[in-house]
């Protein structure tokens, strides 16, 4: 579990090469019930190195409309063990494509209501294009291959969210490159 200021050491950190500057890169994957503080995550990301010239962060939130016009809450479920591994693989693939300095993924599980943050992805690089692309790449693969499932609650009942064609289509962008 990640709590603010207490960042879990990733089991995948052995996959990552040492930074050119000799600094151990920050590489965090956390799945937690608690809300996160995006400011604290940003400080964590940029706090230790000066080779970073760009940070892109993405936050996914619960909205009050989706498949149904009046979503009152959602429940997020994951597959413990496999989810962490899938996220680690995605970050590794991103590192293979771009010069990433540091990366943080925090994904919440459990019960959330509209306005709550669900997921944060932060990527730091030397130049902005790589950071934009790597962050989008990580989110596109997170949505289509990391084992999370959403159940939406409405006044009329609850249902499991279906996969979206648009999410699958987003992956094509990365295949073509």
């Amino acid at each position: 579990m990640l709590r603010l200021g207490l960042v879990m050491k990733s089991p995948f950190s052995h996959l990552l090469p040492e930074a050119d500057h000799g600094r151990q890169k920050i590489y965090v994957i956390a799945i937690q019930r608690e809300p996160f503080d995006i400011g604290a995550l940003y400080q964590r990301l940029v706090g230790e190195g000066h080779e970073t010239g760009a940070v892109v962060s993405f936050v996914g939130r619960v909205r009050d409309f989706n498949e149904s016009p009046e979503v009152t809450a959602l429940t997020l479920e994951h597959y413990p063990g496999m989810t962490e591994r899938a996220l680690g693989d995605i970050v590794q693939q991103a590192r293979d494509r771009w010069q990433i300095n540091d990366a943080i993924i925090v994904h919440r599980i459990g019960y959330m209501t509209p306005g709550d943050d669900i997921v944060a992805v932060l990527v730091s690089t030397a130049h902005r294009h790589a950071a934009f692309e790597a962050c989008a790449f990580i989110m596109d693969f997170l949505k289509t291959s990391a084992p999370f499932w959403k159940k939406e609650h409405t006044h009329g009942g609850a249902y499991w969210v279906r996969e979206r064609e648009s999410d699958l289509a987003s992956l094509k962008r990365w295949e073509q490159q």
Partner: protein
Amino acid sequence: MTLTHLNERGEASMVDVSDKQSSHREAIATGRIVMQPDTLKLLADGDMPKGDVLATARIAGIQAAKRTHELIPLCHALMLSKVAVDFELDIAGHCVRVKAFCRLEGRTGVEMEALTAVSVACLTLYDMCKAVDRGMEIMDVRLEHKSGGQSGVWERDTTVESSPLDTRETSLETPEPSDELNESPIQIRFFAELRERLGIEKLSVLPGHLSSPTLSALKEWIKSQVDTPEAMDQPRLLCAINHDMVQGDAALGAGDEVAFFPPVTGG
């Protein structure tokens, strides 16, 4: 003295055994069912209306030991390496004495399994004989011996025994085939909507119980176990073996974790 099945708030909680040392563990439990001398004679002569009473009760006891974790809420699922249930017809004491022996190499004790085996064997004896004797009494179900683990060897103090169990081994012991019991089962998990449609979160099966050690055979086996087999036929059913996504058929081995789930919708 603390109760290990209660957490610091006094709520029930399963003991985490991952840090416990794996060791050779054994337990023996006994019990008896007291009946009318005539009932015992019918049983001894094999004239009970429901047939072979002892053979049925033995299988019931062995099966119960293997399923203890489904009955006792905070009990772990164990891979028993041996279960034996023995009976002794005590004509003088007009009762059937039941003894269960359980063994495994593992991290938690097997006394609950042995006690469950004795209890269910006694209940089965009651069920098989109740047509001729409703007044039977199941008595003295208790642990006799336990070894292995942190607490070492424990023996019941026999000096206070009112009627010690006859130590003669009976010839009725029929241990399970050990090759089957030594094989690790395939663990199956279901998630999200699929879990709700099946009404099941986890299953396990020994590879030898599948028609072939493959994912397709496992799916067929799952469909034979559930009330809603059509849930397994969804075209977008995803599957992971040992946390790796797989497409199409794949080979399975003992101890594999296989998960089935609908398309993912995180983020």
